[in-house]
């Protein structure tokens, strides 16, 4: 028999006295730890998924575009920016200026209302 075969033949499965109860106790601890780790991994994965979903869908983010649209719509309707009042607006009837003046008064822009009316009078004079 060659040397290596002798060595292998000598390898008998060794029996060692393992404390079964201690082993089972350690094993149960490991199983519990493994269960908790799994739960943590599952919860973390779910949270990461939800966060990614929120980022992708931009849930909860303010819709600036809609706000801007509303602002520009309001400006277009009310024409509160006097330096940008276009000619078409000034060519409207007096009723339009009166309504605008009432609106400005209601909003508390008294001096602007007065200025608007003065401007209207000035335009009327120029037209005459």
């Amino acid at each position: 028999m060659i040397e290596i075969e002798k060595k292998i033949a000598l390898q008998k499965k060794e029996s060692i006295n393992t404390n079964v109860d201690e082993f089972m106790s350690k094993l149960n601890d490991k199983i519990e730890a493994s269960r908790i780790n799994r739960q943590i991994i599952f919860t973390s994965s779910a949270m990461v998924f939800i966060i990614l979903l929120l980022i992708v869908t931009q849930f909860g983010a303010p819709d600036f575009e809609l706000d801007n649209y509303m602002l520009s719509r309001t400006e277009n309707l009310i024409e509160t920016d006097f330096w940008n009042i276009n000619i078409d607006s000034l060519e409207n009837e007096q009723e339009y200026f009166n309504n605008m003046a009432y609106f400005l008064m209601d909003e508390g822009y008294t001096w602007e209302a007065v200025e608007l009316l003065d401007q209207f009078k000035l335009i009327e004079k120029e037209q005459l």
Partner: protein
Amino acid sequence: MSLTIKDEMKNDHELIKIFQKGDKSAYDRLVRKYLHNTVGFFYTITGDRMVAEDLAQDVFLKLFNNLRNFRFQSAFSTYLYRINLNTANSWFARNKWKNLLHLDQIINQQKKDTSVSKEWLNKELWDAISKLPKKQRSVVVMRVAEELSYKEISTITGMSENTAKVNFHHALQTLKEVLNND
């Protein structure tokens, strides 16, 4: 009255069915039944009782996590041998890196200095076995540590009996060369 292999297999399968229904005590009975065999298997490989018990714990933990998916297509012992073999292969791979990084140099030196004991010869042999290709190593581990027949090895590893024999023969040749060179 002694139980036949078929009776053993039936008993194991019944215990697994009980465990799959949610009764953990059936799992505990399985562990107690195969505990000494599994620890003994790893002790033969590692030569260290603590490491053997740790590896056995890893095996039973894997078993706990996977036993619900057991399909009753093979004997439980075969299933357990497969887990043992995979765990042993992982340990060999880890140990290879440890040897490579000389982390166990001091321990080796101490063992070498004390005596050329059987323990050292075993260590030398298992170091050589750990360097074998995976297929050869699996066959050698099953033959040496578990004393399994080629038929049983072919069932566990999925290779044919002849392939197992050839792998064992090649492994012996390689081991002979490695150990003679040392």
